[in-house]
């Protein structure tokens, strides 16, 4: 029977691998998601019928728990706006972290249920695994709560920096190690609880100093942590399914963090140490010395230029999502296509507030995914493009990233919109972007600024195009 369970868990693990593999293309993605659900169902049912593990009362508890949790999850997932996706994912990560802490505590107080000893007499090896799972879980929990609060706007997106921050975090890290050693030597419940408390504090302190612009990295990183936490618990419970799944999720999050960091040309340490976006403002202000004249235009001007163009590349940024302009934008693209204009979308890796966020928002507005291209795919085409239409993006188009070594965004890969014959830039004001850097593009002779709300401006352009 134990062999059967192990094999069933293996099947579940393979299903999870297939779920991720399906995402290689939009055609196979939905099938992949079904594999994921099937894997989860297999895992749960196998555990339910595991002999000796469950008794009468526990069935009631488990079913009650699944019904309550499932109902909450279903309602939340069906109601959530796609713009609020990053917050939702951050909130979900916090739940995985907290669940890991709870399971570790349960295993600590009733190790008999998992066959890893008796209370007060757990092997040192199991205690280390348990402590690591708990610590990572607790850090994931408070870290995700902070990320959620920042993304939701409950807390300022500005990095919160205070003196002695790094020494304090380092001290907490050392304290955590000492506590783990103490736990292994003594099996003391006090050590376990202190590990929980210190890790909770550490999660809070680690994420607070990271600015809003870096949230895509943070969300990916927490995704990774929630996986490592699950793997840690898997070691404690000697469960392969948890280890495999944890490793999958952990490496997935790590890769996404890496891609995001590369998209901003920053090292992961630079992001984790935080503070970006705050002090950068001064550096940006110093760089913006040479001001030219800004040319601003109306919706009619923009409509005229685009109508007479052969190709248009739309560069959407998070500002588009905030203004909910994606539907109006798609309408504009449809009208232009009808006029025989080639319309494509260029997505920067860090556009939006989480990896791939912009693609989802465009897909929601019924933009065919073949029209949506990544930075490497489309960057060369700007030179042969008549109009680059920048809507709600700023820093990812700033040529200073290529030319000005003093700029805080120097070295970041950008979309070469300045190579297009005309650049149309929808913006509410001349304010600088998230990184706090002024964009010299605004002052170029081939740039036309369209001041106004992204949605209203786009709707006006559609009207002008249709008349």
């Amino acid at each position, binding site marked *: 029977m134990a062999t059967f369970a192990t*094999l069933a868990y293996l099947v579940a693990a*393979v299903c999870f*691998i297939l779920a991720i*593999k399906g*995402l*290689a293309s939009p*055609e196979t*993605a939905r099938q992949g998601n079904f594999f*994921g659900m099937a894997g*989860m169902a297999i*895992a*749960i049912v196998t*555990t339910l019928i595991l002999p000796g*593990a*469950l008794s009468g009362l526990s069935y009631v508890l488990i079913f009650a728990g699944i019904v309550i*949790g499932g*109902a*909450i*999850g*279903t309602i939340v*997932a069906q109601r959530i706006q796609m713009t609020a*996706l990053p917050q939702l*994912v951050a909130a*979900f*990560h916090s*739940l*995985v972290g*907290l*669940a890991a802490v*709870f399971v570790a505590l*349960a*295993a600590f107080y*009733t190790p*008999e249920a998992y066959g890893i000893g008796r209370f007060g007499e757990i092997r040192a090896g199991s205690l280390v695994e348990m402590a690591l799972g708990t610590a990572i879980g607790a850090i994931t929990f408070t870290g995700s709560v902070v990320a959620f609060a920042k993304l939701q706007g409950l807390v300022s997106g500005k990095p919160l920096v205070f003196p002695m921050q790094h020494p304090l975090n380092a001290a907490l890290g050392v304290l955590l190690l000492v506590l783990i050693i103490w736990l292994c030597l003594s099996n003391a419940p006090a050590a376990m609880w202190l590990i929980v408390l210190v890790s909770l504090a550490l999660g809070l302190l680690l994420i607070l100093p990271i600015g809003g612009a870096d949230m895509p990295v943070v969300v990916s990183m927490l*995704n990774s942590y929630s996986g490592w936490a*699950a*793997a840690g*618990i898997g070691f404690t*419970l*000697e469960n392969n*399914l948890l280890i*495999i*799944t*944890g*490793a*999958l999720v952990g*490496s*997935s999050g790590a*890769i*996404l963090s890496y891609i995001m960091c590369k998209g901003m040309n920053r090292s992961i340490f630079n992001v984790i140490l935080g503070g970006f976006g705050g002090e950068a403002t001064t550096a940006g202000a110093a760089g913006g010395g040479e001001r030219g004249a800004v040319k601003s235009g109306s919706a009619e001007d923009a409509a005229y230029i685009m109508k007479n163009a052969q190709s248009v590349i739309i560069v959407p940024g998070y500002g588009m999502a905030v203004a909910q302009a994606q539907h109006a934008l798609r309408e504009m693209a449809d009208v232009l*296509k009808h006029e025989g204009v080639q319309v494509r979308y260029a*997505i920067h890796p860090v556009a939006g507030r*989480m*990896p*791939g*966020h912009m*693609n989802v928002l465009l*897909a*929601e507005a019924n933009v065919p995914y073949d029209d949506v291209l*990544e930075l490497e795919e489309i960057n060369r085409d700007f030179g042969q493009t008549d109009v680059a239409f920048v809507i709600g993006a700023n820093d990812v188009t700033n040529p200073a990233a290529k030319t000005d070594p003093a700029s805080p965004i120097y070295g970041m890969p950008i979309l070469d919109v300045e190579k297009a014959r005309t650049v149309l830039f929808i913006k509410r004001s001349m304010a600088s972007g998230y990184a706090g850097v002024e964009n010299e593009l605004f002052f170029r002779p081939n740039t036309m600024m369209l001041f106004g709300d992204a949605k209203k401006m786009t709707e006006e352009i559609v009207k002008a195009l249709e008349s």
Partner: protein
Amino acid sequence: MNPESISQSAADLATTARTLADQAAALANQTTQLAAAGAHEGPGFFVFGLTVFMLACFVGYYVVWRVTPALHSPLMAVTNAVSSVIIVGAMIAASPETFNFSTVMGFLAVILASVNIFGGFIVTQRMLAMFKKKPQPAKS
């Protein structure tokens, strides 16, 4: 790199991932037998678990790199749902003979993980539904 060489290397990666998965499966079988033989000693599981863990990291590495960037948001949502497999541990915790502190912890963990499982898979499904091929609006 030209498209052919990219697709070639992608195919190679897939083969590598499959081989790794096969190896992980073979390992899992071996240990099942070992465990059945009653070789349940101190460092036994840790080494075995570490082997599985490392191999799974490699499988994850190759599989995740093949995910198209357009689907990175669904990737995060689905990995989040999948990591809630921790519910397995929570279910065992919720079921000792007597009702105690661990039962409460297990029960709460079952609720939290269920929120994630249902929420994660449903929101992924919602996102992926948007990526369906749609009839193109008059493209001239």
